[in-house]
Structure formats: structure tokens, C-alpha cells
């Protein structure tokens, strides 16, 4: 029991360290990049009084060390500054967008795993078969796809040519009740499938090769020798071990997934953080950009910590290591 507690405590400690790192990197980037941070923070259209007020709010007249302390303090209180474009707190801008990004990334991850595991199992149980060749080729191509290209083509064919699905946004106005949920799900399909297509390749390829290795291990040979049906050997014995590297992959891919979400949301005008980043870029709304990055880093870190903990559940050895 103490081992589990220590394992969990260590993972939480690492998550906190990563959050601190992300925040510090953002702070240093803002201060060290070419140009006066005052210029980056205050827009040229502001009145001198407003500019001064903003500068003192950011504490830009203090020494760097004091600025850093104040910056951390503000962050701890959830204060990410004021959006230039909308003149409302950045947290307000981002919090109305965060649920959509979470919905999109989480559902695409679930879909990838739900499609990827059976596909990987099928490929691994019939190596060099037709499906195996197909998965290998598809996996390599899938890994090389440019997210917006996939989104644009799905949008063009399924949305604009065949009129099967809505082409943008996250819901239609004026729809309430149960119909609203259906509407949201419909709007989710294209962005979610785009994100799944670019992720699927690496999961299937990883699962395939680890599962082929696992099926050659002694314990699988023994399980077959004692007369266990092949289906049970694959799904109960080999897959449990083969899933470990796949779980690691989720952690490694999370950052990539978030990047993909930014691009996908831009293609589909999906009102998540990614779309917010795109709008902030076009409006040069630096506080929103900065806040969005901190929030995304936080999301990735928390999700990463959860994957680590799941790994501990799957593999008892990790807890003691």
C-alpha cells in the first residue's frame, strides 16, 4: 500500500515540476525574445495612460526576479491577464473554449484506441497477410499526413459534396434538449475522425510489433500448449503485455495530439482553444496566446500523469521500480 502511495506521490511531484517548467519557459520566452516586452504586451493603439497601467499591472518596471515571482503569484490565483481584443480576463476567454478542446481530443483518443487495438490485433495475428500489409502501408502513410490536409478533404467530400455532416462550428444555434446532444455529436464527427486518422498509424504499428513479440514468448507458447483457444491467448495473455508500450505512446503523443487539435479546430472553425490560438495570432492578442499555452501544457501534464498512473495499474513492476 505504501508503495502505491509513494508511486502516486512521485508522479504528482513530477507533474508539478513539469507545470513549473512550462510556466517558466513561457515567462522567459516572453522576456527574452527580441523586442521590448512592454511593446509586446501593450498594443500601439492604446492611450499612454492605459499603457502605463498595463505595464505596472504586469510589473514590467520591476527587476526580472521580482517580475518572475509576481508572475507565478498571479498564475497561482488563476490570473492570466486581460485579453487585448475583448477586454475581458483571459481565463474567461479560455474557459469557455476548454470544454470543446477536451471533448475533441478525448473523443479522438478514445476512437483511436477503439479502432487501433482491434486493427493491431488482427494484423499481428495474421502476420504477412493482406490485412497486415495493408495496416503497415496505411500506418506509414497515416503517420506522414498533414492534419489540415486530412481535415480539408473530409470537409470537402463528406461535408460539401455529399452534405452528410456539418462543415464547421460545434453546434447549430436554436437547437435544444436531446437534439442538441445529437447536433454536437454530428459536428464532432469530422474533426474527431481527422485527428484519429493522423494518430492511428503509430498506435497500430506499435501494437502490432509488440503483440507479435509477445505471441512468441514462452508464456504464450505454454498457454497454447495447454490447449487454450487462440483467441483467449491473444486477448487475455499477449495483449495485456503488448498494451504497455501503447500506453507509453499515449503519453508521448499527447503533445502532438494537442498540436493536431489546434490545426483541426482551425480547419473546422471549432470553438476550442486551438481556434482561440488562431484568432489570438491574427489579433496579436498576446495574453490570450500565453494563457492558452499554459492551459494546454497543464492539460497535457495532467493527462500524462493519468496515463502514468494507468501504467502502474497495468504493470505492477512499475509501482516498485
Amino acid at each position, binding site marked *: 500500500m505504501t508503495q502505491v502511495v509513494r508511486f502516486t506521490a512521485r508522479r504528482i511531484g513530477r507533474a508539478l515540476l513539469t507545470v513549473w517548467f512550462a510556466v517558466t519557459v513561457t515567462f522567459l520566452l516572453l522576456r527574452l525574445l527580441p523586442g521590448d516586452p512592454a511593446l509586446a504586451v501593450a498594443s500601439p493603439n492604446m492611450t499612454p495612460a492605459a499603457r502605463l497601467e498595463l505595464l505596472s499591472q504586469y510589473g514590467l518596471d520591476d527587476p526580472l526576479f521580482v517580475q518572475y515571482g509576481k508572475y507565478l503569484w498571479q498564475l497561482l490565483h488563476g490570473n492570466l491577464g486581460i485579453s487585448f481584443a475583448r477586454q475581458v480576463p483571459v481565463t474567461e476567454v479560455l474557459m469557455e473554449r476548454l470544454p470543446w478542446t477536451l471533448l475533441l481530443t478525448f473523443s479522438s483518443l478514445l476512437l483511436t484506441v477503439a479502432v487501433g487495438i482491434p486493427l493491431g490485433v488482427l494484423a499481428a495475428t495474421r502476420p504477412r497477410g493482406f490485412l497486415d500489409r495493408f495496416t503497415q502501408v496505411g500506418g*506509414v502513410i497515416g503517420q*506522414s499526413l*498533414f492534419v489540415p490536409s486530412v481535415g480539408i478533404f473530409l470537409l470537402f467530400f463528406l461535408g460539401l459534396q455529399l452534405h452528410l455532416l456539418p462543415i464547421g462550428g460545434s453546434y447549430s444555434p436554436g437547437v435544444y434538449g436531446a437534439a442538441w446532444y445529437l447536433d454536437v455529436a454530428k459536428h464532432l464527427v469530422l474533426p474527431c475522425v481527422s485527428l484519429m486518422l493522423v494518430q492511428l498509424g503509430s498506435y497500430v504499428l506499435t501494437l502490432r510489433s509488440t503483440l507479435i513479440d509477445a505471441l512468441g514468448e514462452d508464456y504464450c507458447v505454454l498457454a497454447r500448449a495447454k490447449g487454450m483457444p487462440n483467441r483467449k491467448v491473444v486477448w487475455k495473455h499477449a495483449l495485456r503485455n503488448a498494451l504497455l508500450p501503447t500506453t507509453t505512446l499515449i503519453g508521448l503523443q499527447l503533445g502532438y495530439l494537442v498540436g493536431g487539435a*489546434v490545426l483541426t479546430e*482551425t480547419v473546422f472553425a471549432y470553438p476550442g482553444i486551438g481556434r482561440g490560438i488562431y484568432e489570438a495570432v491574427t489579433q496579436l492578442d498576446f495574453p490570450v496566446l500565453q494563457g492558452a499555452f499554459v492551459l494546454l501544457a497543464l492539460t497535457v501534464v495532467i493527462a500524462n500523469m493519468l496515463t502514468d498512473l494507468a501504467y502502474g495499474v497495468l504493470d505492477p513492476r512499475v509501482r516498485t521500480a
Partner: protein
Amino acid sequence: MTTTVAGLDSVTNDQVTAARATWAAFRRNPLGMVSVGILVVLVVVAICAPLIAEYPSGYGDAVLQGPSGAHWFGTDSLGRDIFAEVVWGARLSIVIAALSSALAIAIGVVVAVLGAYFPKADAVIGTIVDLCLSLPVLPLMILVAALAGPSLITLVLVIAFFSWPEVTRVVRSQALSVVRLPYMDAAKLTGGSSFWIIRKHLLPAVAPVIVVSVVLTASRAVLSAAGLAFLGLGDPNSWSWGRILYDAQQSGAMQSAWWTTLFPSLAMLLLVVSATLISIAYNDARNPRARED
């Protein structure tokens, strides 16, 4: 001392025959050779862009025309020839990929090798690499590119600066297993300097991993650069594949004219897939167990 060093150097000479065997195996892999061919064609197109197509600029009369004899890839919303845009885009995309991956590899390999060789530094380096890898890279690139302003140099630096941890991760794990081998102890016993051991013994041992990293980092750089350009953070004064897509989206052309987005996307896919296949074929060729001889 000289004889010892010469004797030890013959170890590295064996690498020549190993390289020859790898190349012989690589040549027998049709997929790998086709990919090399595609990559060579793309690089030649990038270098000879001025000879192949006129620089796309200004406005044309034929707006949003489908592919035809006059415009192989059709025209965009301002009547510019998309074939010319793709050809000139190849130039920028490949330059960015080459420069940023060269920089990322240089930083990544130095950090990885130093970390693996000096265990005291490794604790710090390992932690920093882990931390960097857990940050969402594209949003970070967006933040920096937006703050620093779009230009070729910004793009190269931003991509390189956020790609080296991945290189370090891969090279470091290989280097860590190499420094534990007995021949590294033997090299230390000859009294050679750390620099000499790293250069003569550690680097050649991790070279294959570096080759694979170069290819993968470069192809990932193509996608990152395109991603930034697609968000309007590319160099606005030169053509890139990402910018063609950005223009198509901004003008709304992508909703009616499939050719505005298909051809730059295909070019990107071709480049990245062939790079990936080369690294797979190289890995297979290098592995004696996967070779059929």
C-alpha cells in the same frame, strides 16, 4: 601509444565494410530505392525551381481554373498557377526542413552524447529532456513565432529549438547502452582524452541512430513549418506548401476548388512518406537479422 591508437582505429575501419553491407542490403529494397528516387526528384525540383516555373506573383486572368494543359495543377483565387506555387514551395519547405533539422541534430546529438558519457550531467539532461518532451510543441512554436514575427530565420530557429529534445531522447538511449560496453572501458584505459573517445568510439556507435533521426526530424520539420504557415505564421514573402493551404483557406477557395489544396498536400505527403520509408529501409538494411544474407 601510437600503435595502440592505430589498433583501436582499425575498429572504426570495420565500419566501412559494415556501411557497404548496409548499402548492399538497402539497394535490394525496392521501396527504399523508390523513396530515395522521389526525394532526389523533389530536391532537384527545389534547386531548379527558377528553370521549371516562373515565380508566382501578381494576379492572373484565369481565376480558380481546374487543372488543364496550361495550368497543370489549376489556378488559385488570384489566378496564380498552383504548379508554380508547389514548385517554389518545395524550395522553402526543403530549405526549412534541412536547416532546422541540421540545427536540431547538432544540438540534440551533442547534448545526448555528453549526457551519456558524463553520468553526472546525465541526471540533469535526462530531466530537462523529459520535461521538454512533455510540453505541447506546436502551441509553443506558435507563441514564439507570433512574438518574434514571421520570417525564415524565426521558423528555422523555432522548429530546431523545439525538435532537439526528441533527437536527444533517441540518441541518448542508444549512447547509454554503448557506454556500458567493455570496449568503452578499454578505450578509457588507453588513456585517451574524453573528446577522443567520444569522437572515435561513441559517435560512430550511435551514427546509425543519428542517420534515422536526421530523416525523421527533417520530415517532422516539414509538417511543423506547414502547420505554422497554415496558421498564418509563415514567411509572407515566399511560397511554401503551408502558405498555399493558408491562402486557400483564407480566400474560401478550398470549399469549391479541390485542386488548391490537393496538390500541395500531395507534395507534402510524398516528401514525408518517402523520408519515413527511407528510414525504415535503412533500419532494416542495417540489421543483419533482417537482411537475407
